């Protein structure tokens, strides 16, 4: 983007990207927003289960080299205690917002989350990133003619002053969630108990899908102890663990007008804070 005409062309492109309800004006006044619209805007974009959609072809794709490298980058950062998976899942699947969530390739969001992470946790600053982007672009300017882009770090940092989590040390030899075994209060529910999923607001981050909120189900398995994603995602190593449960729902209770047979079921996993006992 250099000339005025090019800037105008790009602005015209951006103007066509719509991210709000057509029935509510852009930049609405407070009285225009109903409670349902508020909930819809607050909803975490990764939570798509049950949304209306029509059949698409089930396509497979070949993996790009940068996609593999992005996966590795994210995992090595977790290996070395820079973040935990729950932080990655929030930044790349929720904090990115709905347009990036639905508009960019899957691994583009993983990659975006690394940039955000490194700047937020002060491992790099904005200028270091933007300078390096320009430098890499320049290094590979013009047609590649078969060259495969490759990272070329100028030196290896010693990593001594780097702030890392305790998790990546504690979890060695155990894994996650076994590393949290024995750290929660006794389980409140047992297999066979009837429960209701609490209807809590979905602000910022949760992994309890909207489609089970308020629904009644049965404990199918007492799964493991772990901090809840609502805490773990914010890098809170002080968060107390709780029990997780696999909860079984009857599909015809879960969905209005479920068209399959009465005994079809769905199971999903929920932390204890989301469940309340059903008095039978």
């Amino acid at each position: 983007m250099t000339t005025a005409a090019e800037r105008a062309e790009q602005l015209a492109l951006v103007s066509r990207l719509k991210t709000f309800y057509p029935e509510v004006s852009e930049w609405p006044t407070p009285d225009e927003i109903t409670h349902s619209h508020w909930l819809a805007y607050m909803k975490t974009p990764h939570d798509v289960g049950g949304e209306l959609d029509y059949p698409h072809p089930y396509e497979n794709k070949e993996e790009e080299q940068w996609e593999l490298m992005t996966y590795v980058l994210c995992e090595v950062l977790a290996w070395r205690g820079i973040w935990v998976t729950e932080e990655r899942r929030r930044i790349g699947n929720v904090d990115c917002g709905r347009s990036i969530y639905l508009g960019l390739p899957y691994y583009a969001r993983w990659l975006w989350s690394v940039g955000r992470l490194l700047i937020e946790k002060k491992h790099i600053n904005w200028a270091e990133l933007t300078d390096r982007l320009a430098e890499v672009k320049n290094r590979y300017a013009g047609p590649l003619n078969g060259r495969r882009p490759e990272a070329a770090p100028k030196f290896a940092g010693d990593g001594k002053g780097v702030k890392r989590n305790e998790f990546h040390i504690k979890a060695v030899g155990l894994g996650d969630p076994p590393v949290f075994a024995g750290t929660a209060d006794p389980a409140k529910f047992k297999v066979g108990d009837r429960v209701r999923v609490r209807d809590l607001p979905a602000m910022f981050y949760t992994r309890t899908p909207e489609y089970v909120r308020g629904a009644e189900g049965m404990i199918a398995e007492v799964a493991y102890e772990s901090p809840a994603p609502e805490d773990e995602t914010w890098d809170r190593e002080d968060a107390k663990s709780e029990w997780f449960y696999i909860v079984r729902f009857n599909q015809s209770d879960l969905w209005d007008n479920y068209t399959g047979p009465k005994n079809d079921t769905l199971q999903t996993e929920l932390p204890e804070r989301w469940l309340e006992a059903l008095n039978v």
Partner: protein
Amino acid sequence: MSNSHHDHDHDHDHAHKPMVDEITDFEVLEIALRELCIEKGLFTAEEHRVFTEYAEQIGPTPAARLVAKAWLDPQFKKLALTDAIKACKEVGVDWLHPTGFGAPSDFMAFKILENTPTLHHVIVCALCSCYPRPILGNSPEWYRTPNYRRRIVRWPRQVLSEFGLQLPDSIEVRVEDSNQKHRFMVMPMRPAGTEGWTEDQLAEILTRDCLIGVALPKPGVTNNVTPLVREAIRPASL
């Protein structure tokens, strides 16, 4: 502003493969971030190499092997259904690899779901793409799409029928949404017509799609239901 210019000429023979010979925005960002991480000492180039080697060798072979073994050996089947992580070791998969605490995004909680004459399982992660990667490799693209995730939880029988799998009402369909730290895989029933087969023969019909639960194993069928491949610009496999 190069994006509006290169999508016209080459679309006819290679509709799925735009001829981009310039470095992409994704490649630039990945390289910049990786270089900065190494220079800041967040990780070493050696650690990155070790994880890359791990990531390059995962695939669906051990999962197929595990189920074939379970079909032949009732003791092993019992182990697979009660301690799946331990059973994985017998087909060469250690869930603690390669970091000592596992591949971070895959966790250490794995369950195998047994199909019966009255119960069929199908897996999804309605929130992202959670998948038993250490034993089944990377998930196919369709498994990650909002489309599959939106619909399978609510219209499972319709979605399964789009994969060519029609199930009678006498079979309960159970959708397993792996939305937290558990990972799941389906153990289908051994089909008729495989009597006397070896583990190798059985493993061949245990396709990835069967282990997700969108297909059933059948003698003579060794390919996934969804072979359609969109080619990469610069594929990882080279």
